[in-house]
């Protein structure tokens, strides 16, 4: 679901990837593929909250953290964020 400011789905995915590696440097960015969940990549709940808060701030998305359930894949997270921009 594209938005009017021109931020593409791919850009959101890139932002999630960048924040994930910044918060958990042990994660190889090549492993951060859309079909994975952050839990599967080795993030604990605090890592996850830290990553998603950072992405939401950078993209200025007003979306409560609890909507981004831990079962969501990176793809689903990006889609939800795109919908709420």
């Amino acid at each position, binding site marked *: 679901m594209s938005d009017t400011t021109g931020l593409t789905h791919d850009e959101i995915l890139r932002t999630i990837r960048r924040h994930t590696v*910044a*918060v958990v*440097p*042990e994660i190889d960015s090549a492993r951060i593929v859309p079909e994975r969940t952050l839990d599967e990549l080795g993030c604990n709940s*605090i890592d996850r*909250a*830290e990553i998603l*808060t*950072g992405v*939401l*701030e950078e993209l200025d998305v*007003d979306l*409560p953290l609890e909507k981004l359930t831990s079962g969501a894949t990176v793809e689903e997270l990006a889609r939800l964020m795109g919908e709420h921009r």
Partner: protein
Amino acid sequence: MRGEPVVVSGVGVLCAVADDPAAFAAALREGRCGIRRDADGGPGRADLDDDAPQRALEALRGSPGLPVDRALRTTGRSCLAVRAAVAAALEAWADARLDEHAPAPDRVGLVVAGNNLTGRQLAALTTRYAQKPRFVPPRSALRLQDTDQVGVLSEVLGIEGEGCTVGAASASGNLALVQGARLVASGAADACLVVGALTELSDVERQAYLNIGAMAPGPAAPPFDPDHSGFVAGQAAACAVLESETSARRRRVPGYARVGGVHARLAATGSAAPDPRAEAAAMTGALRDAGVRPDQVTYVNTHGTGSPGGDAAELAALDEVFAHTGRRPWVNATKGLTGHCLAAAGVVEAVAVAVQMRGGFLHPTPGRPPKNVRGAEFTGDAAVPADVSHALSNGFGFGGFNSSILFSALRQTQR
């Protein structure tokens, strides 16, 4: 001190004049001053270079048993205070050769000196998130606590013994050394890392120190100089490994000095006013704890901040403790070179005492310290060769914290 004899078996330090203990010893010997003047005539500062922690950690790569990569990874996004603490702790860990053979993880304790260490981060977060609080990074709940330093250090070094922070304003370093020494002397730990935490003052805290008259408002003369007008804020992290003599000997680590005696006391006040009687009692108490007479003291590392009232009070206390002995101990003021490293000061100065005792010198005192003081002989422009038997290190803090620690030379058979 009662209980197990305690020695300083390793040290680490990052400050405005040096990134490691060997460089610190060299800087002290030549009396190098890390204080930078403010271009606009405001307060000087002796800040730690932001790249210093990484530089210090990279320099430790030669020791294969040290968790340098873990340290860099864990603190990649940390504030300067945490990065500097980790670097100082790894230096001390290597210096004490704990990377080769350490006591069991739950026999190693960790005491971080300092309170209100996160003022600068809190101020920055408050400004940034005032209008968008929902984006406050969740980890701030951890990072804004002084105790984050304890957690991060324990994670990097695998420490599982007793740990905590010890807060006593500018006497935090000494009080943390007291706590660490007691942990080891009581047998609760075989070794204890005492880490002096770097203080990153917020603008409000800095201004408060100026407004209360403690920090020098402009270019400052050194401590004990007739023109002294307050302290210059310094940034440093330092670490001393306190270890039972039995453990250090078992590991064949030579050590720097024995922690012979400690004394800390309050002065029944919540004020910032120094109290010469309480300061003298702190020194006398440490001597009594060690069973050492005042005339046996070779050297006193003063608290000497450059505050006129504080310097005068300490001179009066030195007079009370030493004038009657007919012998004047050497004294100097490390803060004249490093700035006043606040929470870390006591540990920075314990490291200064340790490297001076091992190096057989006492560092110069910059400026024009008084010459004919009863109870104290200041070092001059050049380092003084000295075979130090017993050295006191003073630490005083706002709110009536008065403390002194006696370090004694190790007997030849122990070295």
